């Protein structure tokens, strides 16, 4: 078979992504029709920049979802004859399949690895950002609301983490020895340093949900009890499964290396969220509706979670988008220094790191994941910009 021309490669890639195009069409048509009922999200349809961002983000989300249908090869599948071959090389004896973006130096398909690589980043980055947000909110609200010694102590801690050079922290924390070695033993269970950090950081989402329910239904015990029970069962199950690898059912589990990366990224991100939430709280607590709630005799946590937080949502949603992008960059940085999950995993950062050694001779292996990572972060930033523009119009 003949190698493909550049036009052929492009159309081959466009065809390979067909589930994504179909998904994008359905989502956009549906959202456009219902845009008047969708609040801030619906308003995005009047901002071209935000719409481009949304399309890029959805593109990668759908790619991650449909990766098995899109990628022609498995991430670790090697075809020895195609080592370092240029984009568009046909695969022998495959019935018309091509290495659309060429082969890497271990003869794997660059295009397939790029598609598979989207999965890990699109799970880890939003999840880590979400946990960092919950930690930042749970600590930032009381720091801003009560002020005083609590604020001084928490702010000092946050500044301490912020002054720690990110790259140094990663090098010290994300090593195989630290991920595996137990530091303290707790009731026969050896806990490594990342597990100890996870024990603290993963507690915040649980506390967040419990406080949310308690303040909402505090005066109606009949409604509170079943909801609280359900939240505690699910929350504690996830907590023990993910942080300590002690899920009695054996369903929830996190690889120690993955946990290590995840915890480091959450740890680095939460102080910034803390500072933002603290600042917003200090601004909003002087408003009339907060005084009204205080006069009504509401408790401080009710005011923080149900009066202040909903009114701070605009800047927080915008920052959430930006922060997912930043987390994606951090995650890629870890991969770039070879501190990723496992050496074979097709994450974008690690693929860039492998490809860069042969950059001047075989540029294609590093370019594909680099462009992929850039377009995802660009999408998130444009989306944040669009959201900011629209939320300011209110």
């Amino acid at each position, binding site marked *: 078979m003949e190698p493909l021309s550049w036009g052929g490669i492009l159309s081959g890639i466009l065809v390979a992504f067909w589930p994504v195009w179909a998904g994008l069409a359905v989502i956009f048509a549906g959202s456009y029709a219902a845009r008047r009922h969708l609040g801030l999200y619906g308003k995005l349809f009047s901002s071209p*920049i935000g719409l481009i961002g949304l399309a890029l983000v959805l593109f990668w989300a759908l790619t991650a979802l449909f990766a098995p249908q899109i990628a022609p090869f498995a991430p670790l599948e090697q075809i020895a004859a195609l080592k370092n071959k240029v984009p568009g090389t046909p695969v022998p004896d495959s019935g018309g399949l091509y290495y659309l973006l060429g082969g890497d130096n271990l003869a794997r398909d660059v295009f397939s690895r790029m598609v598979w690589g989207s999965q890990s980043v699109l799970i880890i980055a939003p999840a880590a950002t979400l946990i960092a947000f919950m930690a930042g909110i749970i600590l930032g609200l009381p720091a801003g609301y009560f002020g005083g010694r609590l604020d001084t102590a928490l702010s*000092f801690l946050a*500044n*301490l983490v912020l*002054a*720690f*050079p*990110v*790259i*140094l922290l990663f*090098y*010290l*924390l994300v*090593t195989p*020895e*630290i991920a595996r*070695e137990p*530091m303290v033993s707790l009731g026969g269970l050896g806990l490594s*340093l990342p597990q100890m950090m996870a024990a603290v950081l993963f507690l915040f989402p649980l506390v967040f949900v419990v406080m949310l329910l308690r303040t909402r239904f505090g005066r109606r015990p009949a409604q509170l009890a079943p909801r609280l029970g359900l939240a505690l069962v699910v929350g504690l199950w996830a907590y023990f499964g993910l942080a300590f690898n002690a899920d009695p059912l054996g369903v929830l589990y996190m690889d120690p290396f993955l946990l290590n990366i995840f915890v480091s990224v959450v740890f680095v991100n939460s102080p910034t969220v803390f500072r933002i939430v603290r600042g917003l709280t200090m601004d909003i607590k002087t408003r009339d509706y907060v005084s009204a709630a205080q006069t009504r005799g509401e408790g401080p946590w009710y005011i923080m979670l149900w009066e202040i937080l909903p009114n701070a949502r605009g800047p927080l949603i915008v920052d959430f988008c930006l922060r997912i*992008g930043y987390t994606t*960059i951090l995650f*890629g*940085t870890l991969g*770039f*220094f070879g501190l990723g999950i496992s050496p074979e995993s097709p994450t974008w*950062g690690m693929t*860039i*790191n492998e*490809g*860069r050694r042969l*950059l*001047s*001779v*075989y*540029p*294609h292996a*590093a*370019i594909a994941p*680099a*462009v992929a*990572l*850039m377009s995802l*972060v*660009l999408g*998130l*930033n*444009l989306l944040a*910009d669009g959201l900011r523009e629209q939320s300011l119009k209110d």
Partner: protein
Amino acid sequence: MLLFVLKRLGVMLLTALCLTFVVFWLTNLEPNLEKLAKEQANARMTDEQVESWLEGHGYRRPLLLRYGEWVGGVVQGDLGTSSVFRKPVAEIVGERLGYTGWLMFWVMVVMVPSALLIGVLAGMREGSRTDRTLSTFSIASTATPEYVSGVILVVLFASSRGGLSPIFLERGTLLKGVATSATDSITFENFALPVATMALYGMGYIARMTRASMAEVMTAQYIRTARLKGVSFPSIVIRHALRNALIAPFTVIMLQFPWLLTGVVIVETLFNYKGFGWTLVQAASNNDIELLLSCSIVAVLVVLVTQLISDVGYVWLNPRIRVR
């Protein structure tokens, strides 16, 4: 003002002590010490031999005591000896910091003026086509981390098989993809790509901050007054708006230094430029505890000093803030 600076210095010292203690603790964790013993003495030692080696070299004394000794040494200028380079740490760090200093200097020379120019041009007429184009460019540049833009730039300018080099040259490449030789002499050929890579990522952020600050200043009453008085637009921008619009970006530029630190590590690794970032990577991956500790002091100090300068500078530049 003096009291304010003193107070800040006190907090800074406390932060530095806390952070270096954390680094000390992390580098002296059990697995790291075991690795150190095996590297220094014999890779096939038994657990008892490792234990006795650590005992004999004083690693089994209380952590706080050893930290105190280390701080005492640092205060007297004794940073220890590198176990990989077999040289005093102070000598290595000093030399490498010099190389990184040159990189930083050129990055600043390229990044700051262009970022300010983009920001001022964009913020001058908010919502215009220039504004939209430049703002999109700034967003794109903040979305491109160094390890992405570096790869793209190398392929564009320094690849013999792809990008622009095969179009313009018979053989060879337009620029060099490796900056190792820049430690001897800096030329445009070997230094352009590392500098451009680092400058691109930081530029967008500063430009966006400048734009926001400029746009805010342009809506102020005194600008309207000047305009009604009949002052020409360029003169309004240069003489009235610019001075007030540049206060906020000053803080941002100062706070960029810690970010640049991560950038330095990435860029020096990518282009194999043997400066401070490269040394940090070597120290961390070879378990060179004393070198890594000294690198971390430098890193922490850079962050803290820039924070201090940005705080003090902000107060000094903005007469509306009076510190009591």
